[in-house]
């Protein structure tokens, strides 16, 4: 979007409330909801992609080294990846602990 979401006035919306940009929900960063974040142990990761297919927020990305990790801009911290990982290489770390 040309402007940040909160600065758009109702007069500037399209007639019929049409969203003209595709997939611009990415402007809204759901990562701020998180209280726990997934941390991947790179050496243990077998690069299978199970976390990627089960992520409801489509926020798992493949890093250059081949392992999968969460995009913390969108990760809501649900913990599905940590639970479903077949080798258990993902652990949930509280955000408060830093």
């Amino acid at each position, binding site marked *: *979007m040309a402007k940040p*979401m909160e600065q*758009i006035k109702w007069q500037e*919306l399209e007639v019929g*409330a049409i*969203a003209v*940009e*595709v*997939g*611009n*929900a*990415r*402007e*809204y*960063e*759901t990562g701020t*909801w998180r209280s726990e974040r997934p941390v991947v142990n790179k050496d243990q990761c*077998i*690069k*299978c*992609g*199970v976390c*990627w*297919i*089960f*992520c*409801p*927020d*489509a*926020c798992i990305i493949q890093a250059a080294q081949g392992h999968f990790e969460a*995009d913390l*801009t*969108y990760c*809501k*911290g*649900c*913990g*599905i990846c*940590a*639970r*479903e990982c*077949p080798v258990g290489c993902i652990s*949930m770390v509280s955000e408060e602990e830093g």
Partner: protein
Amino acid sequence: MDRFSVFSSRLVEKAEYFTSGHRACQGCAEALAVRLVMKALGRDTIVAMATGCMEIISSPLPTTAWKVPWIHVAFENSSAVVSGCEAGMKAMMRKGKLNQKKINFVAMGGDGSTADIGMGPLSGALERGHDMLYVCYDNEAYMNTGIQRSSATPFGASTTTSPAGKKSIGQQTQKKNLPQIAVAHDIPYVATACSSFPFDLMQKVKKASAISGPAYIHILSVCPTGWRIQPHDAIRYGRLAVDANVFPLYEVENGEYRLTYTPYKVLPVREYLKGQGRFRHLTDKEIELIQKNVENDYAKLLKKCGGQG
């Protein structure tokens, strides 16, 4: 993972048509189901979606999480709108105003819009034989407005309009069997799926979109908020529902039933019920009753499948 190697996730289409940044609750298996369905359908798709969780979380103006043409319609008429789209596009292609192209027409709705409010238009669309797909995301109550009971709520579940207490055990009626209603329309393809079995789900969606004529897919979508479970357990409970035969996965192709997944070891229904807050008031006697109902329903289904499995 279901009957595939653990590495088969890497063979799946990488493009996302339902993007990050949607506002579903943590661990929403319904959002996962939408993501997987869109992955299977690809970009040549037109979606009409009834009011419900998925409409609210994906399209707060001015943003949208969709990368395909998407229209929000009222609670009851998603199937009517999609059948109109299909008829219109067909006419435009016939007159040469549009190039001939295979387009997937998809109507989506929750269990409230499918089982209660949109039942009539859905029945009409299936009967008229449009080349469309109806996907029902069944989270077993009206989760969007705060967990009110729908006719797809299972027996014994406590919701805000069927609360459990001294005189009540929660929902007192059985779950409406929507796939059987769709089968009764004699349509080419009906299937049940669950987002805990992603490859099975995507295979069924691909099959349904390839078939010409109406198709219906019923997807069990675990709702951590409404089922009162931990968000990280969402996938596990879908798997438990299937393994306990509460929600068997099958498909009906031109009237022929086929089980697509048989549990290696059938779990007692208690395993599925015990962790869920909405069932925690149930006594042993009631669980016994549910177990018996589940076994009866499964036996009926097996009979239709010709005794396989």
